[in-house]
């Protein structure tokens, strides 16, 4: 898999072990200081201290929502007599996103060490790594790495001679995008369909089997060992005021150098695409770019002029940073077909629980399909916008918004192209 790092002085937090020979093996990981931060946590930090340290680092959840990690941990009640669970969300499935897969396959011990720390912070004694079912190779590497960590005494009973016990289970999903949503993931882990649950109550109090549970993304957890080793202040010194540290970006589509990049938060978007990723190949022009995975609104070239890659700046531009899945489209791309492709994804993946999403996603897919194939009516465009508006905010989980937002953005930002398809009764881009 392709992975690039920027030249210059930026400290590598998440990609620091990528490219090291046998980076997936315990010996390589410990030779580079791995599991020493975990020892330091167990031997010298109370759970509350660890939570405070991570709060001070400013680390925010990298699964897409950007919620502060330390705060999420602090919602777990200390006096609840039920068991507590920590779940690593390794169910990466967002279109255009392949950063977690890189870490899972090449640096599984960083994920395990981060998972140990998060479990310790909430005083959980059972942790799960829920890995996407299709990632068979990655799951094997995770399973082997967990075995190695058990054998070395980093997981198990009386870790480092303390009173702290933890078991870790690698659990494979079975093919369902929705299981990346944390309550759907918990339903799946309970042995059922991956159906999201109404919040509140939140998983922090009523999660797996009704017990207090925290779900953290792979990238979030993999940042923890570095934060403990170098200190919260060193992490918080990177990035912007509200978006601290570094983040992984998966770049795909019409781009000279696709791959996974680690950037300090706040890096200029246009510079990143043109200089670091080599720009749109073959001298073609940029037509649009999705900044945060398939769920996020597309941006036109003029909209990224002064955008920086951090949560606030991308939001101000009218989209969201999401998973950091950057999908680049050049001038030859048919935006109607692109919109249909994304709509088809959501029609296929809707779990079917809430009617606005179950019905609406299929309607949008059918309408985009007929516009693209020269059978559309002008009123179809407003009908899609109407359906999108009726899904938005009216479903149990954020999947509905994730289907509604890109559909509306494609039409609003490339309306001329949609209208030309309707008028000429054919795809006007592909002919």
């Amino acid at each position: 898999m392709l992975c690039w790092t920027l030249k210059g002085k930026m400290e590598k937090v998440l990609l620091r072990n990528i490219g090291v020979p046998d980076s997936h093996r315990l010996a390589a990981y410990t030779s580079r200081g791995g599991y020493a931060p975990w020892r330091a946590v167990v031997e010298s930090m109370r759970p509350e201290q660890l939570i405070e340290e991570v709060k001070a680092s400013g680390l925010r959840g990298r699964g897409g929502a950007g919620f502060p990690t330390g705060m999420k941990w602090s919602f777990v009640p200390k006096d609840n007599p039920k068991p507590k669970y920590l779940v690593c969300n390794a169910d990466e499935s967002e279109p255009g996103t392949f950063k977690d897969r890189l870490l899972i396959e090449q640096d599984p011990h960083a994920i395990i060490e981060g998972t140990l720390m998060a479990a310790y912070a909430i005083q959980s004694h059972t942790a799960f790594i829920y890995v996407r079912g299709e990632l068979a190779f990655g799951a094997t590497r995770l399973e082997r790495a967990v075995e190695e960590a058990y054998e070395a005494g980093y997981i198990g009973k009386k870790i480092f001679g303390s009173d702290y016990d933890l078991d870790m289970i690698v659990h494979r999903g079975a093919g369902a995008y929705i299981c990346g949503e944390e309550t759907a993931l918990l339903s799946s882990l309970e042995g059922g369909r991956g159906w999201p649950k109404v919040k509140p109550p939140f998983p922090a109090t009523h999660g797996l089997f009704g017990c207090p549970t925290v779900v953290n993304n792979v990238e979030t957890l993999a940042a923890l060992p570095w934060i403990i080793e170098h200190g919260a202040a060193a992490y918080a010194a990177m990035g912007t005021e509200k978006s601290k540290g570094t983040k992984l970006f998966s770049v795909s589509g019409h781009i000279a150098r696709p791959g996974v990049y680690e950037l300090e938060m706040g890096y200029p978007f246009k510079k990143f695409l043109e200089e670091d990723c080599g720009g749109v190949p073959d001298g073609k022009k940029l037509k649009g770019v999705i900044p945060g995975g398939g769920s996020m609104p597309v941006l036109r070239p003029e909209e990224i002029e002064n955008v920086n890659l951090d949560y606030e700046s991308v939001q101000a531009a009218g989209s969201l940073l999401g998973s950091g899945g950057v999908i680049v489209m050049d001038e030859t791309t048919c935006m109607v077909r692109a919109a249909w492709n994304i709509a088809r994804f959501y029609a296929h993946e809707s779990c079917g629980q809430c009617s606005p999403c179950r019905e609406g996603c299929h309607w949008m897919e059918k309408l985009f399909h007929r516009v693209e194939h020269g059978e559309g009516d002008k009123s179809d465009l407003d009908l899609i916008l109407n359906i999108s508006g009726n899904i938005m905010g009216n479903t149990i989980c954020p999947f509905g918004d994730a289907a509604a937002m890109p559909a509306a953005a494609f039409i609003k930002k490339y309306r001329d192209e949609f209208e030309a398809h309707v008028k000429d009764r054919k795809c006007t881009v592909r002919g």
Partner: protein
Amino acid sequence: MAVEFSPEALEKFTDIVARYPRKEAAMLPVLYLAQGEFGHLGPEAIDYVAKLMGQPPARVHGVVSFYTMFNMKPIGRHHIQICRTLPCALGGAEKITAVIRQRLGVEPGETTPDGRFTLSEVECLASCGTAPMMQINDDYYENLTEEKVAEILHSLK
């Protein structure tokens, strides 16, 4: 054909269930085990797993039909799953799919008469930087070209 686990599979079943804090959490790994044993998860297999797990068959059926990786019908020895989502589509996935359809003479969702290949179109497999791509059984094949696909199909018996 009696649908029942071999003694070795029953031993694996016991090990899997013992790993989880509650038995029902072992549902997906037990279904994987059953699919490995029986080839696919038809009605008898679902009834058998329901009995082992102490759950109604309807619930197990609901789980099996929810996830794309559980096959309710027999599939070919090589399950070709071509990613059709946007980054792969931008990289030419439609052309790759057309080549495979033509070479195998089947449409997505179908199996070749000799039982060698099943063709499926699937959604994003987290390999967008190396598009277009496909997964055959557990293995990823990335940066596909028409020539590469021809070679891969030829090499699979």
